[in-house]
């Protein structure tokens, strides 16, 4: 299924290499990966067994550049060819926009080719895709081997839908790009036919169908800049060392009604998940409640000063001086107690 993203001015298509086991699907992808310029390709990822047999799929993204003003990206997948892995084959085929069927040209592999092609038809239909209409290219691989079937015979037995065919020797790279190029062309022609801005003008596009493009201002060509994350690089120990103790006891049991109002910095320092962190904890409410708690702390401290007879030593602690001042100015007269600061 094609994804069209106007925000990124991007089109994503999925192409799948299908065929019997050991016919050369993974080799096709490896050649594409090897020969494509670094700027256009992504990593080749394989989910394979230890013996390098494809277990789930091989995958690589290939960016082809601008087509009709849209950046075009193909995601290339292979399926596991072995009969046993039909369930995973179906998953990979899901939403495919085009298929390359890689056949092994050796005569003793003909039955496997036929079985695999029938399996492809069944699986396509099961996914709601029509083998008659999906862009498909057939590749006759291993043409360098001494004993291979005649191309006409392969065509007769496998090419049910008159798809374009290519001879290939995937291990040397021969025929790999012509196959992919043809499929890319067929997929893009189909897309252009369905979604072209002026389909009637497109020679390769055919007649317009089912949609009436309305004139609309062009979307901004530049995608939105990615929001800059605020990931703090400092080590965990440092993060935890910075205390913000008021966060934990204040967690509200209910959600905030307007979470958009939260500060952008989503990673408050000192947020310790070590205790009380197993259950969902909505954002603590800030503001009035914090001031209240601060006041209670001040009062408690002041009480402690009075009760414990602290009168002198705390003077040396600079951080407590505002507290002492507050006590002297505001609380001492009210409470009738002595000053927490040492008398002159």
């Amino acid at each position: 299924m094609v994804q069209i993203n106007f925000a990124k001015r991007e089109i994503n298509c999925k192409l799948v290499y299908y065929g019997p086991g050991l016919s050369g699907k993974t080799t096709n992808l490896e050649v594409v990966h090897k020969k494509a310029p670094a700027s256009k390709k992504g990593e080749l990822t394989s989910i394979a067994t230890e013996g390098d047999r494809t277990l789930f799929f091989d995958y690589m993204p290939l960016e082809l550049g601008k087509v009709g003003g849209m950046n075009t990206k193909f995601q290339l997948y292979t399926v596991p060819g072995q009969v046993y892995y039909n369930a995973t084959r179906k998953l990979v085929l899901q939403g495919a926009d085009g298929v390359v069927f890689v056949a092994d040209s050796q005569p003793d592999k003909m039955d496997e080719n036929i079985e695999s092609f029938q399996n492809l038809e069944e699986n396509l239909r099961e996914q709601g895709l029509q083998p008659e209409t999906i862009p498909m290219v057939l590749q006759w691989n291993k043409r360098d081997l001494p004993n291979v079937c005649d191309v006409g015979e392969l065509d007769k037995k496998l090419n049910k839908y008159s798809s374009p065919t290519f001879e290939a020797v995937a291990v040397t790279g021969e025929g790999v790009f012509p196959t992919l190029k043809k499929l890319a062309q067929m997929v893009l022609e189909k897309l252009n036919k369905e979604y072209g801005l002026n389909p009637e003008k497109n020679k390769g596009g055919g007649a317009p169908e089912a949609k009436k493009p309305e004139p609309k201002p062009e979307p901004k060509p530049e995608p939105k800049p990615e929001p800059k994350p605020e990931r703090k690089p400092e080590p965990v120990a440092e993060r935890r060392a910075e205390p913000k103790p008021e966060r934990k006891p204040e967690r509200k049991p209910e959600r905030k009604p307007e979470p958009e109002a939260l500060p952008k910095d989503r990673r408050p320092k000192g947020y310790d998940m070590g205790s009380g962190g197993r259950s969902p904890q909505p954002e603590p409410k800030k503001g009035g409640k914090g001031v209240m708690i601060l006041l209670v702390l001040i009062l408690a401290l002041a009480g402690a000063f009075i009760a414990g007879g602290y009168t002198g030593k705390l003077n040396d602690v600079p951080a407590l001086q505002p507290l002492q001042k507050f006590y002297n100015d505001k609380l001492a007269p009210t409470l009738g107690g002595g000053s927490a600061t040492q008398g002159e």
Partner: protein
Amino acid sequence: MGASETDRKLRKARLIFYEDDVERINKALENYQNLSKSRCNMLIDVEGHPVTQVGSTEGINLETIAALVAASFAATKEVAKILGEAEFSSLTHQGKHESIQLSLVGERTILATIFDSEETTIGMVMFYTKELVEKLAGIFAEIANRKDLKQGVFEPMEDMESVIDDLFGDV
């Protein structure tokens, strides 16, 4: 083929995001990211194409992770069927430091939340995910049910063959 049948087939055959769709989605994702204290959030369609992402994606190959996440989710769906469930709506892979939570949004999109266990917890992430998934499912249903294209996708092209030749010229 009736008009409604054509619409249905078109809807099934493509997924189109306009700029304002993505803006709405990103806003919801950013809000969720702040609340859940997750590292980054990606939306991926079930075919493995990335739709959009917010947050720190440094060191993450988005396209590869999108393909793997979609495959992982698809495989899990089959497991669910074997167990008699229609699907598993969420899936978590928990690591020592980094973890990933996958949640199905609507029918065709997966939310992938990557989070650091030093910063938040799976419970916190799941708690906020529920609301986000409902919100996004509404947006996606709207996108999927849009009847007509607002605009054509491609600018006019004279000759597809030469376009392809240009594209593959240096490949």
